[in-house]
């Protein structure tokens, strides 16, 4: 059996959170009655003309810089021609052979050094409208009685990012996307939420035998709307391709949808017309020539990038925790807690485990007070749980928790421990017979008697000591 190497490239679409659309001044973003955010331009009425959104262009340049791209001295919008009900002009204004950003590299810190993912290009285009397929026996598109079109989303600025096929595992692809998303969010140019569709990713997947230098036929994988689905989709497709090759079959170039329930990929129903987009320069728009002053200004505005921050946190937290903190959007809460004197590991453990369980916004944490709580030695678990829950409510104060520390004084606990052991000779027997698990039972008993006020660590030590004798 040969060993197979997956070859994965990603194509990501990011909806920018500008106030208005890409080529008209209708409000962009969610909300509004269907078709209430439309005008002659985004409805493609005869004679309407596009005017490019300055903010969208600056943000695309900024993202390009964050991705280590070269910013084109001259970029041009092209028309991509095809018919679809949600494409009112019969063409999408996009970029073709003269995109705004090209040839970048995005670093994903990994256990064995940095994984570098090449960025082929990042260009600006307009989003399509929403087609809702109504009726039909199965409710599936093909059987739909008719389609309803809402043009509110049509014309929203969309950045398309294309990576080189530098990824080799589904996990890497997922981690790349999570870090890319965090970068986009921290640039403040998009909320980049896959559930909302403001971040979408397709994967180009092929496999080859390890050592093979040429690429084999690749397929395009779509319809994955969470990081986990992307990972699972890629795994499923990689499996399918390996089986095909090993059974003497051939992978054919095609577009596939990942079906979550069955965890399988299925080929897309292809348009009856072969794609021939007839790109040509959009004559209604003039070229973009980003001034060097603008580029310098935007470069100056770039924050520390999440990738670098992971490496900065790593020495104290270890790579895994650093990744959780950074990709989880917990960086600034973490740094504030540490500034307030909380030891790095404690801060990161609390954020990554207890706080994250709340699913709350880390921006809401009353840092100073929560830091005090985390610094109380031997605080009881219940108290800690309460404090965590309260940490995001205003007026939260550490005061109420200072005295709720666990009993750690052995002189108080020792008699209790001895009593419990004496009262349950049977369990002691089983323990001595080698059933270490029984220890848990004794700990439980002690905690019960002390109303959870005992310090479990101390209780453990005492029990082991007594049972050992």
């Amino acid at each position: 059996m040969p060993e197979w190497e997956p070859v994965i490239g990603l194509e990501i679409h990011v909806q920018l959170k500008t106030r208005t659309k890409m080529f008209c001044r209708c409000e962009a973003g969610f909300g509004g009655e269907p078709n209430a955010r439309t005008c002659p331009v985004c409805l493609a009425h005869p004679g309407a003309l596009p005017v490019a959104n300055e903010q969208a262009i600056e943000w695309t340049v900024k993202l390009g810089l964050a991705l280590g791209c070269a910013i084109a001295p001259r970029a041009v919008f092209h028309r991509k021609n095809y018919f679809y009900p949600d494409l009112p002009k019969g063409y999408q204004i996009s970029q073709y052979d003269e995109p705004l950003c090209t040839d970048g590299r995005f670093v994903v810190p990994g256990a064995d050094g940095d994984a570098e993912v090449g960025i082929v290009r990042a260009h600006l285009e307009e989003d399509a409208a929403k087609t809702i397929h109504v009726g039909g026996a199965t409710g599936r598109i093909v059987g739909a009685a008719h389609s309803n079109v809402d043009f509110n989303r049509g014309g929203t600025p969309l950045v398309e990012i294309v990576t080189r096929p530098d990824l080799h595992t589904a996990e890497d692809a997922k981690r790349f996307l999570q870090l890319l998303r965090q970068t986009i969010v921290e640039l403040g140019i998009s909320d980049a939420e896959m559930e909302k569709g403001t971040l979408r990713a397709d994967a180009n997947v092929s496999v080859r035998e390890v050592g093979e230098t040429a690429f084999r036929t690749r397929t395009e994988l779509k319809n994955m709307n969470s990081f986990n689905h992307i990972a699972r989709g890629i795994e499923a497709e990689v499996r399918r391709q390996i089986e095909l090759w090993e059974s003497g079959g051939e992978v054919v170039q095609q577009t596939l949808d990942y079906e979550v329930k069955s965890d399988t990929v299925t080929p897309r129903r292809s348009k009856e017309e072969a794609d021939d987009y007839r790109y040509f320069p959009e004559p209604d728009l003039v070229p973009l020539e980003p001034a060097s002053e603008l580029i310098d200004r935007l470069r100056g505005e770039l924050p520390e990038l999440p990738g670098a921050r992971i490496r900065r946190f790593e020495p104290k937290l270890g790579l895994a925790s650093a990744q959780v903190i950074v990709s989880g959007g917990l960086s600034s809460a973490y740094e504030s807690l540490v500034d307030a004197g909380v030891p790095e590991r404690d801060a990161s453990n609390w954020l990554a485990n207890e706080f994250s369980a709340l699913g709350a916004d880390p921006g809401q944490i009353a840092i100073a007070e929560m830091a005090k709580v985390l610094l109380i030695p031997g605080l009881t678990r219940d108290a800690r749980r309460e404090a965590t829950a309260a940490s995001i409510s205003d007026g939260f104060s550490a005061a109420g928790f200072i005295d709720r520390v666990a009993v750690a004084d052995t002189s108080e606990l020792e008699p209790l421990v001895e009593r419990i052991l004496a009262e349950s000779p049977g369990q002691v027997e089983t323990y001595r017979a080698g059933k270490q698990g029984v220890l848990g039972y004794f700990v439980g008993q002690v905690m019960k008697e002390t109303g959870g006020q005992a310090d479990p660590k101390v209780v453990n030590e005492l029990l082991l000591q007594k049972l050992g004798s």
Partner: protein
Amino acid sequence: MAISRDDVLHVAGLGRLDLSEDEIGRLEGQLNAILEAVSKVSELDLSDVPPTSHPLAVVNVLAADEPRPSLPLEDVFANAPARDGDHFNVPPSAT
């Protein structure tokens, strides 16, 4: 480079024209005549000439990201051939 009947059908597909039989025949002849005339441009060797996609050398014409009023719904649908509530109604479209 003559246009065949198949070319006519392919191009009509791309341009979404449901041409009738006699239109297909007529267009095949006319397009060939026109193409022969316009193919003249290929006589010139312009390998080192830059293309002009715009008569004026204007760049960076942009608008500030400030919302303007959209159309009232009655205007949005004023010319609509088919409407379903606040949506444009179209025959089913397969992706």
